[in-house]
Every structure is written in structure tokens, then in C-alpha cells.
């Protein structure tokens, strides 16, 4: 029992530490209708630097978009198939069970 209490206490400390940076940020966001743009805005950068950054990320972003989209479509179709198969499995299990064919 004492062991459980120690584990719970350590876990609570870890949890509180992990959300501690988020609480002040939430307070800032709570100013509804206020400033939602980060203080360290990209506007501070020169147009040339922004263009350079944009070009470097644009290509990466298009690749990531493509990979995420393909992965998502395949994963979605897999989930559909698996859900229908598993639902039917439960139907079959309980149908057999009710008829007494499976104990």
C-alpha cells in the first residue's frame, strides 16, 4: 500500500511538472479576442530571409503533405476493413454461443 502511495506521488509530481509550462500559456490565451499572434513574430524577419525560409520549407511541406495523405488514405481503408471484420467476428461469436455450438 505504501508502495502504491509513493508511485502515485511520483506520478503526480511528473504530471504537474509536465503541464507547468502550459498553465501560464493558457492564462495568456484566456484573453479572449486578444492577441493570438506570437510575440516573436515572423514579421521581424527581413523579406529576403523570409523568402529563403519559405523556399526551403515549401518543398519539404509538399513532400510531407503527400506522404501524410497517402498514409492516411491507406490507414483509413485498413480501419474500415478491420472494423467490419471485427464487428462480424463478435456477431459470429455470440451467434454460435447462443446456439450452443461454441461453449
Amino acid at each position, binding site marked *: 500500500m505504501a*508502495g*502504491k502511495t509513493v*508511485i*502515485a506521488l*511520483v*506520478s*503526480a509530481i*511528473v*504530471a504537474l*511538472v*509536465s*503541464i507547468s*509550462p*502550459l498553465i501560464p*500559456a*493558457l492564462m495568456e*490565451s*484566456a484573453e*479572449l*479576442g486578444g492577441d*493570438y499572434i*506570437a*510575440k*516573436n513574430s*515572423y514579421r521581424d*524577419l527581413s523579406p529576403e530571409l523570409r523568402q529563403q*525560409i*519559405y523556399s*526551403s*520549407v*515549401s518543398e519539404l*511541406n*509538399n513532400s*510531407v*503533405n*503527400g506522404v*501524410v*495523405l497517402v498514409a*492516411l*488514405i491507406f*490507414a*483509413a*481503408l485498413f*480501419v*474500415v476493413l*478491420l*472494423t*467490419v471484420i*471485427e*464487428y*462480424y*467476428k*463478435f*456477431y*459470429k*461469436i*455470440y*451467434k454460435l*454461443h447462443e446456439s450452443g455450438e*461454441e461453449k
Partner: protein
Amino acid sequence: MTVLRRFSKSQMAAHFIGSISGMMLMITGLSITFNQQLGWVIDLLGGSAISMLLHRIFATILILSFSYFGTYIVLDRITSGRRDSNISFSPSFFIRLIRDMIDDILWTFGLRKERPKAGKYDWIMVADIFGMPTLALIEIITGAIMWFPATFLVENPMLFFTFRTIHVGVAIFLVLFVLAHTTILHMAPGNFPVNMSIFSGKISEKKAKIEHEEWVSLAERVEEKEPEVRMSLAGYFAGVVSCAVILLIAITTTLMASEGMAGLRIVESEGIYGVVAAVGLNLAIIILAIYIVVSVVALVKGVSD
């Protein structure tokens, strides 16, 4: 007949807090991402500023529960061992899971005589147990980067949009994951309208013998009246609707396309395809809202029983 102790209070709390905060994150997040189809949700919540604030509040709750229960489960496993759980981290365990998955599917289609016997967690539950926190961790990391771009993206602020695409892609998959999880483990025959074991911590011995035969001899017994599980017509209707919504969301993913820095967008927002996307997304939101209400009611019932 007796009932068996299936889940501890920590597991029940982890499931409840994680699922409620996760589903609220999906509702607020989907409406921000697909505001053309789900603008009414933002209006209902009080505007985009409140939607974003709610998204961050529920993200904080998710991180709190994720860190607490993650640490608790790891430390408990180290100090007390695996008790009645069949989950281990050996290669043979994962090989058996794959074998069970194949055998299970073969049995479902009548290509195998015997259904594989499962321990406390069958292969699909283990996939849930490992998959859900992994995907949630990706969302937490990408979400934190987007929440604090000035901290994490100092060198290249434009990477914000790359992380947003990953965040949105995984979120859509998580919506499918949650809908599939509830369809299989709550809507299916033997479980409908709700699988109470995760809310009460107990399961009937009869049901456990059917679904988790290898675990029954290891489980703690509790003298209690065994609940009767019956499948109703409403159950089949709910199952079909749930499967249909998963299909509609899957079709919606095929209607999306890359729009550069804007990320993934539904390109066919008009005509029949637009209707499919709108119906799928709106039904998903409504179903998630229903699940939240059902989870609260089930927990109250489970704890009071």
C-alpha cells in the same frame, strides 16, 4: 456465477480522462480544421477564440493524464510485475499477436476451425493499448510545437505548417481509430450499448470465458450478480451507422489534396463528394458528443454499482 475484476481504478480513470479529453480535442480540432463543414461547432462553442482555448485546455488535461498514468503504469509494472496481464515486451509475444490476428481473421471467414484463445488482452486490444498512446504522443509533440512556435521553431518558423499537416493527419486517423475502437468494443454483439468492464472494472465470468479464456483462471473473483448481455435490433442499427460513418470519413480522406503551405484540404467541397464529406464529418462530431455523454453516464453507473 461470479464476476471477475478486470481493470484497476487507475486504468478506469486513465481511460475515462484520456477518452473524454481526447474526444473533446477531436471535436474542437476537427471544427477548426474543417471549418467549412463544421463551422456550426465553432459558433456553438462561442467562436474561434473559445474553440482554440478549449482545445488547449483539453490538451493540458490530456498531457496531465498521459504523464500521470504513463508514469504510474510504468512504475507499477516495474515494482509489481505484470500480475494477470498477458502483455510482455518479448519478441515471442508480438509474434504470437500477429499469429492470433491472422488466425482470428481466418476463423471469422470460416477458414479455420478453432478461434485463438486470448489472455487478458487480445491482439486488437493490445494494438489499442500501444497504438493510442503512441498516436497521442505524436499529437502532444506536434501540438506543443504549434502552441509555442517562438520556442521550438526559432530557426525556421515556416516549419509550423509542416507540423500542422502531421498534427491534422494523425488527428483524422485518431478519429477513425476511436470510432473503430467503440464500434468493435462497445457497439458489437455482446457489448452493446456499452462495454461496462472499463467503467465498472468488472466483467462477467461467462463473457470472460468467451472472449478471454486464458485469463479467467488468473482473475480475481468478486461475488456479484452477473449482468445479462443481450443483442437488440438497436444494437445492430448503431453498429451499421457507426461502420457507415467510418466509411464516410475514409472516403473523405480520398477527397483531400495537398495545397502547399495550407496543408491538406478537402478539394471537392461541392456536389456529391462535398455532401459525403460534410455528412461524414458532421456525423463523426455528433457521435463523439454522444460517446462523451455515454461515457459519463456509464462511469456514474459503473462506480455506483
